[in-house]
């Protein structure tokens, strides 16, 4: 999985997921390159604004505990007074619970429930 970052936010060690191509169609840097300070300098010289970098997808990062999902359900229940009835609505709610649980995980369970 990749994400787009502004060159000014790119740091040494990030891995290019897509090639960098100039407006003549020439490949300036291939995918898979681990960005070093000299790459960042050159990209700046070429006036490249945005680059695609690889995102880490380790199991531990994506795994959400059942406890966090339960907490997410409780938080969401406070904001809903209806029950999803069709498949797309159930998928909509499921996605929001996963996103909320991930946020809770990032915040180390310090989510403000007030």
């Amino acid at each position, binding site marked *: 999985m990749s*994400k787009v970052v502004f060159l000014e936010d790119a740091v040494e060690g990030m891995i290019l997921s897509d090639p960098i191509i100039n*407006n003549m169609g020439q490949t300036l840097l291939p995918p898979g390159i681990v960005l070093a300070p000299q790459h960042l300098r050159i990209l700046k010289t070429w006036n490249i604004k*945005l680059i695609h970098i690889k995102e880490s997808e380790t199991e531990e990062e994506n795994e959400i505990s059942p406890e966090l999902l339960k907490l997410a359900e409780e938080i969401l229940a406070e904001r809903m007074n209806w029950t999803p009835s069709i498949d797309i609505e159930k*998928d909509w709610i*499921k996605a*929001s619970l*996963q996103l*909320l649980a991930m946020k809770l995980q990032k915040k180390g369970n310090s989510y403000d429930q007030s």
Partner: protein
Amino acid sequence: MINLDGIIQRINEFPTLPTIYSNLMDVMVNPRSTAMDVADVISKDQASASKVLKAANSSIYGFQGRVTNISQAVMFLGFEEIKNLITALSIIDLFASIKTKNAINPINLWKHSIAVGTLARTIGKTAGVKEIENYFLAGILHDLGKLLFYKIIPESYAKVINYSIENKISAREAELKIIGTNHLIAGEILAEKWKLPLPIRNVIRYHSAGTISGKSDILVSCVHIANLTANLFGFGTDGKEIIQQPNKIAWDDLELPNNFFTSNMNKFQSEYEESVKLLLKNK
């Protein structure tokens, strides 16, 4: 209490859109205008030119890293998309002077609007819409009435927000109670003053309902779902708003795949973050 007449009077005193917008409209209505003429107008406004380039290279439009000058941006995006992008940028600039006061945080409202813009575009594409040009703009502007309230009656609107949270009711119900009108009506009046196109005015007026007087409209359906999704997913909100059940007519209109949200949620999150950074940099 302020009433609709008071709001209308304040709207009449409200500024028109910036010069770059009117200059661009003048060039675009001329059938002899070329991409170079349009690029000339944009290039004269440095701030807009830089943002157009960044937007063209972002995942919103998908020409990542390939658009290096304004002429290319005009050719790649097309007149219609460029016009909509400049309209969005002009309106963001116009409201940028809103000062943060009390409970009101306009940055969150902008973040929410940008989220609705990116979501509306993605939902529209998935729903098979071919002419997607005004979906991002429609999403950005759906809450024009709220932006107006933030600008002209910040103290009253802070009360609206608190009232809505305390009583667990929607913003428009709280607006009716405190202001005597709602952001859907006020937004439509401002959109008419600015002569924004009818599809955009329809979104501003009907995005909460999800239909135009019971009849489906694909753009309104998209923004309706995108708006509720941004609220549900916590994009640009503090996660306390009541989640309204979407209008079934809007779901039926869009015919989205049943796993659409779970399979795209990471993409939604990254597109939202990228667009906020792009359009609200230094804010």
